[in-house]
């Protein structure tokens, strides 16, 4: 991928705080119009990377380019065309919804007239028309998140950098945000989002990168990652002695993981496994197609045994 077509390009980026390595030799590139996900457990370095893209943290080594601008050197110029949804809301709580957008538009040098012209569409986009004159302190968490999203769009950015846009929201609020983000992708925006919701990544991201302790452990399209790392059906088994069960079905499984009380059995031929379990009382068995969650569990090794 050449530089001019990529919205984001990281090459060999490293960052430590003290002697703790936070980002380790990370390289990836995001094409224009693409939705790219950064996945990883708490502390994996997702926010650090997002802030590096904005020039708010400088890498110790490596090269970053965002919208063809070298970062952090010319991050300010890049930020003119970036919209940001930070991990933790930083709205003006004592201002109304409309005032938040007004104040933010001014930071981008927009005139009052220009701001007034775009605010109705942004409010509509964020489904906040009726809350225009409500103080932000009185909004629900989901509304605040939508306002943050609307605020990030005020400068009509080419690229959106979103750090956990749906964390802490109920399923309804989350689905609403997902639906809004899909609209943005249809409009041709590039999105980089961090998340630890596999479902979110699977639904939205064209490509994603799985991080652990600042290191990239996998990268690719969600379906390809699932195929590559799992590539077979999953049987979840609850309510038995997982170790005894794994001995029993081991020969018919490609791979077995025990996480807490649940046994995950990855098998090309699930019927063979089910036959083994037939007649055993007290077992609950769920067969499903594999998903990113399985990939994540497999790759990060968390709570994994075999």
């Amino acid at each position, binding site marked *: 991928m050449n530089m001019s077509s990529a919205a984001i390009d990281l090459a060999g980026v490293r960052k430590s*705080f003290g002697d703790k390595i936070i980002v380790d030799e990370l390289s990836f590139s995001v094409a224009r119009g693409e939705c790219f996900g950064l996945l990883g457990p708490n502390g994996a370095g997702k926010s650090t990377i997002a802030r590096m893209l*904005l*020039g*708010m*943290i*400088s890498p110790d080594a490596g090269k970053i380019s965002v919208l063809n601008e070298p970062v*952090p*050197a*010319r*991050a*300010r*110029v890049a*930020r*003119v065309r*970036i919209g*940001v949804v*930070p991990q*933790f809301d*930083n*709205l*003006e*709580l*004592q*201002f109304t919804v409309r*005032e938040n957008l007004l*104040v*933010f538009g*001014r*930071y*981008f*040098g927009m005139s009052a007239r220009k701001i007034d012209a775009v605010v109705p569409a942004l409010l509509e986009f964020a489904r906040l028309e009726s809350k225009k004159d409500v103080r932000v302190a009185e909004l629900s968490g989901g509304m605040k998140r939508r306002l943050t999203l609307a605020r990030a769009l005020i*400068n009509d950015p080419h690229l959106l950098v979103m750090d956990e846009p749906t964390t802490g929201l109920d399923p309804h609020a989350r689905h609403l945000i997902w639906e809004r983000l899909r609209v943005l992708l249809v409009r041709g925006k590039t999105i980089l989002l961090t998340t630890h919701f596999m479902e979110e990544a699977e639904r939205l991201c064209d490509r994603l990168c799985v991080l652990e302790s600042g290191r990239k452990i996998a990268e690719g399209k969600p379906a390809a990652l699932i195929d590559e790392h799992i590539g077979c059906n999953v049987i979840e088994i609850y309510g038995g002695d997982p170790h005894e069960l794994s001995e029993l079905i081991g020969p018919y499984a490609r791979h077995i993981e025990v996480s807490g009380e649940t046994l995950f059995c990855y098998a090309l031929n699930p019927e063979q496994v089910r036959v083994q379990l037939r007649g055993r009382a007290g077992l609950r068995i769920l067969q499903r197609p594999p998903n990113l969650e399985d990939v994540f569990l497999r790759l990060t090794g968390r709570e994994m045994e075999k």
Partner: protein
Amino acid sequence: MGESYAALMPANAYNWIAVWRRNFLAWRKAALASLLGNLADPITNLFGLGFGLGLIVGRVEGTSYIAFLAAGMVATSAMTSATFETLYAAFARMDANRTWEAILSTQLTLGDIVLGELVWAASKSVLAGAAIGIVAAALGYASWLSILYAMPTVALTGLVFASLAMVVISLAPSYDYFVFYQTLILTPMVFLCGAVIPMSQLPSSFQHFAGLLPLAHSVDLIRPAMLERAVSVSAAFHVSALCMYAILPFFASTALLRRRLLR
């Protein structure tokens, strides 16, 4: 290093205005309470000290003590309002409220934010200084026009102390440290710099030292203006000294804030 420091500086001559207007909007929502809070203290001092001590002291430097004190109070209130605005309100915007973080994700630089905050704090100084001046003028201790003449110095004083306070917030881990700055630096300055006691009353070694402090320069400009005395040649010296006190901490605090906010 040099290049990246340059990238911190105000990006242009007007970006800071957006920060100023943000603070103005927030202030307008609480204007009454904030006005009363800002003004009650210096006006109480003016009356309490002015009438009380005035009875004992009589005339000072060829004028009534309360007229002498009024100029000192204008300077002092410029100092305290800019300091408090920066120490408490700007610190909250930087730290707990994440307002600066939000601004840093737009096209503004850290320098734009710092400059906007300094000019905002200086605006509050002008408001506080003007209010005391108006009270003094209404009571006949200064002329209306002389209050107007004093305002540029009041604004400059506000910039100076906002700039110094910006260095304090760039270093202080939390609110708890601000009280040291107030009690160990600001309060002694009020007494050393001729705001309430003529500097000529100090031991001469103190006078030399005190004469270098920023509040002394601003008192030395504001008092002659309010008492309508002739402008002396030393005025240029005082103005340049105040400019240095405003500019150098601006650069220092921006560098220190980068270390704090933009790792």
